[in-house]
Every structure is written in C-alpha cells, then in structure tokens.
C-alpha cells in the first residue's frame, strides 16, 4: 500500500490564481481530512469527509472547496489564492469514526502564494 499520497509536493501561485491539491488513499478508508499548518503552529482542520458524497467544514474552511466523488480521492480546491493561504497542507485518512482509530497522514504539499 502506498498509503496517503499528495500532489504536488510544492507549488508557487500568484494571487488570484486557482489550483487543486490532490489527495489519494489506497487503504479503503471512509474518513478523509484536509489540514493546513502555518509556520510554528499546529495543524488546523479545513474540511473533512465521512464517505463518498459527504463533506463537512472544519475549523478554517473559508477560501477552500472540496469534493468526494470516490472513496479514494479527496481533492482540495483553492479558487482565488491569497497570501494568507501560504501554508503546508496535509491530507489524512482513517478507516472509521472515533478517536480510537489512527489517522494516517500524507507527506504534505507546500504552497506559496505571492
């Protein structure tokens, strides 16, 4: 199993541009998450999904959109990039609900908005 994979690893965007961060997991996990990590800070939840076709907002959803058409994929869309979205983005997944289940994290995507 490759686990959780994210592409790209690094990207520079200009203000106002849009892009999609890709996340794929091959563990047949139902739950998937997007986090952002600003310098010197912990991770903050952007959006999460409990299964295909179901998504919900996290702590910092503004400026982002998500979709979940398949179990494997959970892309994160930035429509109008702003400097405040400069961050490292992590995707994670786990099999079922609850804190007893481990979240598996991807390697992260570093995004710089100039």
């Amino acid at each position, binding site marked *: 199993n490759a686990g959780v994979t994210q592409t790209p690893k690094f990207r520079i965007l200009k203000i106002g541009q849009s892009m999609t961060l890709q996340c794929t997991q091959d563990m047949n996990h139902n739950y998937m998450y997007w986090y952002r990590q600003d310098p010197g800070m912990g*991770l903050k939840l952007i959006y999460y999904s409990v299964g295909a076709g179901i998504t919900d907002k996290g*702590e910092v959803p503004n400026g982002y959109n998500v979709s979940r058409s398949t179990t494997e994929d959970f892309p994160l869309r930035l429509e109008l990039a702003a400097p405040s979205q400069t961050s490292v983005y992590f995707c994670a997944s786990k099999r079922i609900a609850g804190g007893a289940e481990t979240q598996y994290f991807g390697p992260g995507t570093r995004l710089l908005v100039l």
Partner: protein
Amino acid sequence: AQTVTQSQPEMSVQEAETVTLSCTYDTSESNYYLFWYKQPPSRQMILVIRQEAYKQQNATENRFSVNFQKAAKSFSLKISDSQLGDTAMYFCAFMKLGNEKLTFGTGTRLTIIP
C-alpha cells in the same frame, strides 16, 4: 471550544536521557481522546501515543508514556532512553468523543544531542 497549550517551544536533551514534554488543555467535555503526534524533518505526521479520557491507566508505547491528569487537564509525554531518531516536532492534540475534529497545540521542537 477546546484549546490545547504546549508551553515549551523548544527542548533539547542528551541521547539516552529521559525527557518530558508538557501539554495542557481546556474543555468542558468529559469524554474525549488525547494524542501525541511526532513530525520529523520529513514533515510526515506520525501518531506516537493516544489516551482515552475514561481510562485511568496511563498509556504506554515502548519508550513513550504519558502522565494523564484529568482533573488538572494535563497530558505530558515522557520519552525514555531518547534516541537521535526522536528529534522532531511533537504536537499534542485533543478530540471530543463523537466529533471528528482534532485540535492541535503549537508544538514542541525536541532535539536529541549525540
């Protein structure tokens, strides 16, 4: 809303020594999970240990153990016989039972000195 506080931004310790990382949290919930995650320079987030709030016994995983003081809302991580591979950022995190949202602290950068 829950908050997680890690008051030690940086720590260093000699190889083979024991080190304790502090974490306090604020919540009105009685049922929740607490976690310690490790983030090495590779940026991958790795679960180190978890504690269910309803369990009085402190969790242990090999060289890693916690001191969970529910009344004091304290959740410290002890690393015994520290190794060079333990060098990383360590994040404390909180999850309310039945809620998928993880709340992270700001992290402690731990350096193991050879």
